[in-house]
């Protein structure tokens, strides 16, 4: 009895040995990024591009090998299946790190692509999303000279692991995108990647979305303001002019918060408070700065930044989108039911008046006075 039990168990343990169907590494192609465009020939079809890394023996000395494939089909799933018959190796999406939407596709409706990305079980929720201009395909085709691993330069820029530019919108993962696309009172925003020449990408703009499509592009200056408002301790510098002299100051510390003043129902207010500690980085006159001068500079910088911020906020407000989650903020501070909050916010939002209170404390003048 006992012996039979042991024999049966051993046989059962052998089951998974054949069953896993796991493919060896050299039989796989790892997709690192994918792009979705509208097909030019047929507006109903999508054009899907993948960028895959070809596994090499020694990653240290390997000259990078990249495979880029484009396929047109009605659905992304179909396009991927069509691609599979064009390669000898199995496509693996488990390491895909970026999803790029073509600009024209983003302006139409991105829901089909986001649905596929989230529904597919081997795609991580941590895919960076961005919009590619002129198209996702062309963005993926660019091979920057600094790139050492396939597709890596794109990821390093979007993730801020590498370069930390104030003009790149903080990482927007697929789960952020989906969360904001469904949330009441928050809308998606994505960085815009532009192709510059054959081997250069420029990520300095942003795109605002309503629930399903792109509605407006933010220029680099505006993206920087957005980043100041959205996060803490942004690494950037800003320019201002005082009496014909050009100055630039770097941020040492920054923080932003806002308050909604809704007591007066006819003119609801949203007041941003931005606190910045800064140091002078450049002074076009070259003359030394004294203690009184520093205060003057701070005041001038405050005033000019305040104006810029209000301009950007009003511009965003005009599009009717809510990339900074003011609506969710409103909902999170009111105890009404979901529908009541939603309706109230829909009434309040168009009337919102934005104010920015900036406090800049320029503490240092750099290494020289």
């Amino acid at each position: 009895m006992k012996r039979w039990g042991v024999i049966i168990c051993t046989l059962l343990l052998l089951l998974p040995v054949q069953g896993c169907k796991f493919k060896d590494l050299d039989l796989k192609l790892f997709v690192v990024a994918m792009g979705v465009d509208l097909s030019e020939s047929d507006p109903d079809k999508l054009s899907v591009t993948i960028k895959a890394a070809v596994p090499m023996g020694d990653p240290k000395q390997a000259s990078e090998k990249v495979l880029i494939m484009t396929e047109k089909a009605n659905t992304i799933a179909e396009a991927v299946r069509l691609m599979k018959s064009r390669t000898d190796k199995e496509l693996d999406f488990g390491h895909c790190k970026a999803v790029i939407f073509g600009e024209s596709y983003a302006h139409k409706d991105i829901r089909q692509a986001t649905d596929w990305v989230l529904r597919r079980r081997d795609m991580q929720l941590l895919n960076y999303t961005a919009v590619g201009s002129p198209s996702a395909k062309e963005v993926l085709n660019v091979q920057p000279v600094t790139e050492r691993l396939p597709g890596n330069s794109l990821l390093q820029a979007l993730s801020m692991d590498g370069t930390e530019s104030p003009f790149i919108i903080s990482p927007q993962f697929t789960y952020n995108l989906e969360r904001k696309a469904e949330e009441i009172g928050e809308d998606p925003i994505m960085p815009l990647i532009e192709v510059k020449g054959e081997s250069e990408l420029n990520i300095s703009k942003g795109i605002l979305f309503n629930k399903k499509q792109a509605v407006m592009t933010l220029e680099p200056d505006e993206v920087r303001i957005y980043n100041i408002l959205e996060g803490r301790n942004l690494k950037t510098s800003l320019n201002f002019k005082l009496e014909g002299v050009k100055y630039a100051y770097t941020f040492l510390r920054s923080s932003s918060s806002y308050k909604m003043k809704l007591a007066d129902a006819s003119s609801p207010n949203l007041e941003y408070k931005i606190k910045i500690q800064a140091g002078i980085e450049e002074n076009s006159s070259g003359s030394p700065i004294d203690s009184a001068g520093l205060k003057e500079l701070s005041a001038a910088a405050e005033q000019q930044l305040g104006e810029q911020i209000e301009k950007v906020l009003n511009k965003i407000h005009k599009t009717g989108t809510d990339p900074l989650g003011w609506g969710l903020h409103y909902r999170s501070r009111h105890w009404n039911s979901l529908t009541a909050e939603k309706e109230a916010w829909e009434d309040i939002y168009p009337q919102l008046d934005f104010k920015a209170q900036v406090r800049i404390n320029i503490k240092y003048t750099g290494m020289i006075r």
Partner: protein
Amino acid sequence: MAKDRYFYYLFLINALLNIVNFVPKGLINGRFDGSMASIMVAVPLGLLFTYLFGKVMGKFPSTGVPEIYNQYLPKPLSLPLLLMFAVLWFIAGLITLLAFVEITLRYISMDVEPLTVLVLFLMVVCISMRINTESILYGLEVLLFLNFPIIGYILFKSLLNPQFNWNAVLEIVTHSAHWPSFGGVATATFVFSGYANLAIFNRVLKNVNFKLLWLLGISGFLVLLTSFLIPIGYLGTINVDRHVYPWFSTADVLRTKNFVIERVLFLFYFNYLMLSLASTILHWHISLNMIKGMFASKKRKKPKRSFDWWVIILFSGFTFAAQTANQFKLDQFGQLFLDVRFGGEGILILSVYLAYRRRKQRQA
């Protein structure tokens, strides 16, 4: 005799396992309709149940529920009760097991046959559930000690992430002013249900003193809040209910630089794999003992050894049959079980109390 700290492990494993047993899902479904209020009600209620059952079982030192029933309740009452509890505990384990098979397929590999995974899980569980009650407790302690730091790390990690949206969490908290629902309370009390395992484990546990009851309350409350609110912080107040397993999606959102693999998901998966199997072993062990209790007569205390194997075959058969259900059925079944279980716990406490009263009458 094991020390009474083991009682708290029974609580802990159940509390941690709520993620697999559809508790977050149930609470998330009612997030705008009184889930927060249900949690507030569930904590004192869960503590009350724990206290009452602990007290009443304390009147029968070193005895399990089957012996109590057989001795003090009439046969027409004790048999259906034992059968009911055997089924309830079996289903508790069954849901954990099936949910985990589905999670494995979804997150690890779709290419593996579901049956293969199920057979492997069943082998582990069925063989281990036969070991004696005390050994299970000792194993449980080691397992929790190994897994608890990892869970702590994941929680820590998830709360410190800048992508965590506190406004979304606050939005749910500001929906607390709502009447609790029966379903919500039943779902939330699952976190405290670990005490019910005392039904069998009372055989080997010393009487529980309830000095640390407040600790159960606080930890249960925190477990409920984290398992309900953290997915909302990441997946949004509206979007969260689209995720089939909200907590596994949440783990997928996290990334770590201090481990061999970047994705916290895998760490989380293996962690919960161990806990789920242990919890299933625990539940089925109790179910097995309840069934044995049904066949115990006054002459022969224990049925033959081969009896276990028939039960294993029965359990496996039901599991294979249940495995054919689709995702929505399993989900509904899991939710339904949470409600039924709540009622079952009430009956358990009442019936043991009844037995206690009858003993007193006899002695008088």
